[in-house]
């Protein structure tokens, strides 16, 4: 509830002290921020009867309404506000910004407010999209820029970093804490973001961040996606992660319009753990258990439906009318989940994902280079496997067996080039350049130090419960190290002269390059086990394999262009 309730509190406070009919004006980013935390019906309860975008060029004057603006403090927004203040459409203007305003921006606004319609300007630091209680994202566009060195496109890099710093600052201002900052040594962009955040929190706005100091300072850890490129490439089998991987979740909404034939009212659905109890209970369950639970739910619903059809007395009728709203809600919920699972089953069958995923998990978790090579070759030869799955397999193989037997690796590249028309092997090499074994800090495959090797062997001997969900993201090991206070300073140094005494109780992990729902699941399951340390995960976006590959492609295209120049 942590992140979502923070955003809800902010929005509630914005609206509660302003009586009368209101209109809420948002920009394209704050729309996401508000939509995941607040529903339309809740806004109506607060007497907000219209929601508009700040870009909307409507000229209608409605002076009986009070305008509440909630915008990011960007220069474009300030310019748009200027124009609107010069010709006010509403009776009163209450401006709220999601992050720190510059003095010049305040002056510009004061200058254009000739009619003195602005009643208040406040900074409410809800600058992050709280999709789950312990998971936030920033939805940064032009995402691939983090893979390229700064010199390629300095202004884009700068705006990327600025947005990341703003988002992190927003989280800590909302939590009212000031953290100790650590970053991943091998990543330049992580270092840059960490340093700029430290400058903001400790030098530029130290007054704003000067909160009551607790015994254990919280920890902010900034790491790079490329340290664990395996997790976004894998196919997922737990509900929330699977939906995102196969179909795609955007701000807790799923768009089913392009996927097969669905009924009209199920074309776009909401998957939110706050509003949907079934989803909350099942979002981290694997596909098999999920199927069973859905069947139970459908059976229950059929019982209720049957009893509803059996109306004989006035009493029954009255009871039916009484329970009708709940019945309708239940019906909507059941059909939503059934549609979702049906679609996913269809896609799994179509793309033969069971076989593909088995090999993927083997590549990610277990050893055996020869067997792996054989499996991948077989699947590449298999006509039924789609191009993107073939590419993923080769990538996973390359990431693992980069150094062993380069000849066989070349064979795979050639095979991939011949089979798939769309994808070029250059992409795999680009991935290796970005995230190869030389660039990684963490022990992705558990084969670097003796302890990890032993652990892996023990696991292999014990066998796994479910071969499809045996992968554990690298994040899990990082989290364990933090809990035990054993995060190596060589790999993850502190910023400046920060120092952490003891073990932190609150940790925010920020992954530059995006998080995945599998990692969010790891975090949520850990938090549920009440171990004393609470983790919050955030990133610049939420990845699935499609997005990650797209980032790689775009970064590759740009780096080719800049190399040519």
């Amino acid at each position, binding site marked *: 509830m942590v992140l979502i309730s923070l955003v809800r509190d902010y929005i509630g406070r914005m609206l509660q002290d302003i009586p*009368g009919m209101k209109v809420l004006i948002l920009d394209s980013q704050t729309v996401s921020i508000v939509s995941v935390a607040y529903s*339309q019906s809740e806004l109506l309860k607060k007497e907000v009867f219209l929601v508009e975008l700040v870009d909307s060029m409507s000229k209608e004057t409605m002076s009986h309404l009070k305008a509440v603006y909630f915008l990011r403090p960007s220069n474009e927004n300030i310019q748009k506000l200027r124009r609107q203040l010069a010709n006010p459409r509403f009776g009163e203007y209450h401006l709220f910004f999601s992050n720190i305003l510059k003095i010049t921006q305040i002056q510009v606004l004061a200058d254009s407010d000739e009619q003195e319609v602005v009643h208040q300007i406040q900074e409410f630091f809800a600058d992050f999209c709280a999709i789950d209680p312990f998971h936030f994202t920033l939805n940064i566009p032009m995402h691939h820029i983090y893979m390229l060195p700064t010199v390629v496109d300095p202004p884009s890099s700068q705006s990327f970093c600025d947005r990341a710093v703003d988002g992190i600052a927003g989280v800590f201002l909302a939590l009212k804490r000031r953290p100790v900052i650590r970053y991943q040594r091998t990543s330049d962009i992580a270092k840059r973001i960490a340093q700029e955040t430290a400058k903001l929190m400790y030098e530029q706005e130290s007054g704003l961040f000067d909160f009551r100091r607790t015994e254990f300072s919280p920890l902010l850890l900034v790491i790079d996606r490329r340290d664990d490129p395996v997790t976004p490439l894998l196919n997922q089998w737990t509900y929330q992660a699977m939906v995102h991987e196969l179909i795609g979740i955007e701000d807790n909404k799923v768009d089913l319009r392009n996927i097969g034939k669905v009924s009209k009212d199920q074309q776009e659905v909401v998957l939110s753990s706050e509003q949907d109890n079934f989803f909350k209970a099942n979002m981290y369950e694997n596909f098999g258990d999920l199927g069973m639970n859905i069947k139970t739910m459908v059976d229950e619903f059929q019982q209720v439906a049957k009893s509803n059809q059996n109306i004989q007395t006035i009493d029954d009728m009255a009871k039916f009318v009484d329970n009708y709203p709940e019945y309708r809600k239940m019906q909507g919920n059941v059909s939503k989940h059934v549609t979702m699972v049906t679609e996913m089953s269809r896609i799994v069958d179509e793309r033969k994902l069971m076989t593909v995923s088995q090999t993927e998990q083997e590549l990610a978790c277990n050893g055996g280079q020869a067997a792996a090579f054989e499996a991948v070759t077989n699947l590449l030869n298999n006509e039924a496997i789609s191009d993107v799955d073939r590419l993923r397999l080769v990538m996973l193989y390359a990431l693992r067996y980069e150094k062993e037997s380069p000849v066989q690796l070349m064979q795979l590249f050639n095979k991939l080039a011949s089979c798939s028309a769309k994808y070029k092997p250059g992409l795999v090499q680009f991935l290796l350049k970005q995230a190869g074994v030389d660039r990684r800090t963490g022990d992705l495959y558990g084969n670097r130090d003796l302890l990890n090797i032993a652990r892996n062997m023990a696991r292999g001997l014990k066998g796994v419960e479910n071969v499809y969900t045996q992968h554990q993201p690298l994040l899990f090991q990082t989290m364990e190290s933090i809990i035990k206070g054993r995060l190596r300073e060589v790999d993850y140094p502190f910023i400046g002269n920060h120092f952490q005494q003891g073990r932190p109780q609150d940790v925010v992990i920020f992954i530059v390059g995006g998080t995945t729902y599998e990692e969010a699941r790891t975090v949520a399951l850990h938090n549920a086990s009440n171990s004393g340390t609470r983790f919050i995960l955030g990133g610049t976006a939420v990845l699935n394999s499609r997005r990650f590959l797209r980032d790689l492609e775009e970064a590759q295209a740009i780096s080719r262009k800049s190399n040519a120049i």
Partner: protein
Amino acid sequence: MSTRNRTPLYRKYRDALRSVRVPVASSLPSSSSAASSGGRAGPVIEMVSTSLLHPARSYAPLSTEDPSNSSPAHLTVSLPPAWVDLSEEISVNMQHARKKMSDLVKAHEKDLMPSFGDGKEDQHAIEVLTHDITYLLKKSEKQLMKISSSAPSGDSNIRKNVQRSLATDLQNLSMELRKKQSLYLKRLREQKEGQDGFDLNMNMNGNRPTMEDDEFDDIGFSEHQMSQLEKNEAFTREREREIAQVVESVNELAQIMKDLSVLVIDQGTIIDRIDHNIQNVASSVEKGYKELHKVLSLCLRRKNTKKRRNGYVCDSSCHNVLHYAGPPNTKGITLLINTNTNWNKSSGRGRYSVAGLFRGNPCILFFFNDLPCVFTYSLYFIPSFLWN
């Protein structure tokens, strides 16, 4: 969660800038005010808050000659549209209904308690209250429907949202009332059976059991028993009538609920998402834009075929459509002002203008939002006799 208030700093800048600006404004006295504030003479009533439920606020008359007012051309605050009054009325009605419902609950309690009297006043009170509440709810529902049926204008979104919010409240109220009524019904029935059972006991205890002495029944009933029986029957009839009434009101309310359920948003569905609702507005606007392009391209195609005659214009005005749209009139409709001077001379018309040819017919394009990038529009065919 921390926030920071920048209002004091903002006010400081605003005041500082105002003192820089005012000397410039005051040097242009009535001449500018006449031009800039045209049509805004006279006292202006400003509605500070339109809520009838906040009696503390009042209507404050605001004079335009107020010298302390920083800007001479003060914004004309227009009265809110009529449907706002309707929505206020509905809220007030619902408040009354709520109050009456708590009275009804008390009356139910009183009636269910065993009493010496006939209880007829209690029942009458309950009847009256129930009838009043149902009437209030029905009236509110009718008014709610009226909100949407008034002339469509730009604030249709707001009206729809106000309707939704009121419909949700109304539905909750109806459900509450029905629950209370069915509870009352249930307890009434229990009482009735209890009473009958009690009577049965009395019969069994006090006198010979009727089952075994059937043949003695005719002679058996004493005077006391007869009157008792009659009283019970009358009592039963009364209760039956009450139950029937309650059932009837239950059905009425069910009807209201059915009508309202169309308006109410289902929580947790896509319709309840703010970004979805914003997108819907944007997509309909976009569709209008696409249609407009189609029309204009058609106009362009006829550029060489039709000469300028009888004031009909061709492609040049189509370009002008995109760039020069006039300010909205009082109805919020923007009429296109053609800047082609030749045409103005030939037709002699000032306000209306033919925007182009569409399938050979003259047409007027109305613009509701007049800006170069986004418009909605409607095509309106006028008969040719209007054009001389």
